[in-house]
């Protein structure tokens, strides 16, 4: 299978390791990723928040480049996904408004988690794992932009999604039931108002811990950086929770290794995953 790939700016910087794990997972699944040539930033929140025209035209340029390739477009970043979907919708409704003669491509813009949680792909992943994650209790954290607004994202269960849960279950981990799966971590305010972000991230971490989770799993590069960097553990003996990318866990379970270079990318110690893999040398036969 061939897919066009839009990594987005975070995956070249703070979430470079996310990019690596996405590519590795796709390699295992025999999916060829073709980077959209000369792609530009989608504008993220800053563009649509302060300049509608710029906020639409930046992702539109990417769509027109992707149209040349023709394949479905795989997007790992939640913000990029939402911006590309919004632009796609506007462009289909009224291309001339955006100075495009016609626009009716038959490709789809696909968010990574919904893609990986498809039944066939999950089955392939499940049969490829060499080390089960051994009932590791994980809080699946979706955040905002891969789900909301469902008019734009097309997410079927925006209040009660289960795609991340399905993925980590296939890896042998145990998703916990918890309250803050789709709460905002206020990524766009993290630099300007770290006090607000610390409060929101704190609430998310407290909720995850209350449910018994030992780590969080996400698919959003802003959430990952934000929830690790703004988590403050003030109470003595309280352990901060690392935030893993779903693809990072898939790579670890398939390869059976969690290399030091990958451990180092975390701002909060990911010891729990290293420990789990070290302890659990055999595949656990579990049905999906």
């Amino acid at each position: 299978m061939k897919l066009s790939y839009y990594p987005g700016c975070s995956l070249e910087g703070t979430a470079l390791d996310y990019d690596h794990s996405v590519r590795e997972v796709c390699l295992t699944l025999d999916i060829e990723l073709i980077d959209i040539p000369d792609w530009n930033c989608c504008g993220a929140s800053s563009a649509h928040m302060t300049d509608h025209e710029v906020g639409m035209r930046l992702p539109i340029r990417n769509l027109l480049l992707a149209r040349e390739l023709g394949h479905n477009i795989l997007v790992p970043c939640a913000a990029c996904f939402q911006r590309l979907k919004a632009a796609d919708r506007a462009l289909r409704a009224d291309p001339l408004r955006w100075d495009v003669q016609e626009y009716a491509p038959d490709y789809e813009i696909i968010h990574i988690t919904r893609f990986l949680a498809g039944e066939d792909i999950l089955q392939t992943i499940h049969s490829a794992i060499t080390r089960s994650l051994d009932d590791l209790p994980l809080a699946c954290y979706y955040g905002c932009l891969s789900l909301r607004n469902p008019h734009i994202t097309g997410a079927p269960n925006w209040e009660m999604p289960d795609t991340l849960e399905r993925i980590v279950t296939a890896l042998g981990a145990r998703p916990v039931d918890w309250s803050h799966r789709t709460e905002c971590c206020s990524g766009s305010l993290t630099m300007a108002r770290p006090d607000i972000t610390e409060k929101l991230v704190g609430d998310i971490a407290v909720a995850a811990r209350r449910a018994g989770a030992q780590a969080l799993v996400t698919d959003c590069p802003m959430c990952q950086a934000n929830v690790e960097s703004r988590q403050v553990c003030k109470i003595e003996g309280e352990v901060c929770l690392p935030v893993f990318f779903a693809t990072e866990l898939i790579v670890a379970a398939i390869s059976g290794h969690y290399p030091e270079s990958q451990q180092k990318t975390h701002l909060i110690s990911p010891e729990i995953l290293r420990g789990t893999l070290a302890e659990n040398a055999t595949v656990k036969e579990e049905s999906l």
Partner: protein
Amino acid sequence: MDKTVISPKTRNRKFLHKLEMRNVDVHACYQCGRCSAGCPIGDYFDMSVMQAVRLAAYGQEEKLLQSDIIWLCAACETCATRCPNNIDIPGLMDVLRELAVRKGVPADQQRVPAFHKSFLGSIRRWGRAWEVGLIAGYKLRSKDYLGDMGLGMQMLLKGKLKLSPHAIKGKTEIKDIFSGKGKEYDR
């Protein structure tokens, strides 16, 4: 908020027209309050989300442009998703921020627009957001020189920050976008 006087004389029709153009139907609000109840940042605002929608319906642009709410809203879309009347409240916030920037209305929360400006500056220049450059730009604009120094160093040491930017080939297209392409017809 309790002493707000609203009169048809102060209703800004151009503002209401702009909302209509963007399909933000603030008049559909019947004040159920679900938007305010679910807002993750509502505690920090100087008015509730529902009040902002109501003020917008009354055309009270000026009050809204001076409010914290437009800069502290994180565009998480929770309110819009739960609104029984499908009012695009984040779309309202987008319109308000855009007007505040165009009109140069000074923000109490000046660090937030300083961040957006730095982020967009990076895209305008390179075609992609380059974190190191935008952080530097933000520090200069916001005068927040010392905040997050430790975190920045940590990220740098962990190789999470790209040291040099990547300039895309289509930079002139990006420049066109930023120089107001499409706005020729007063959008």
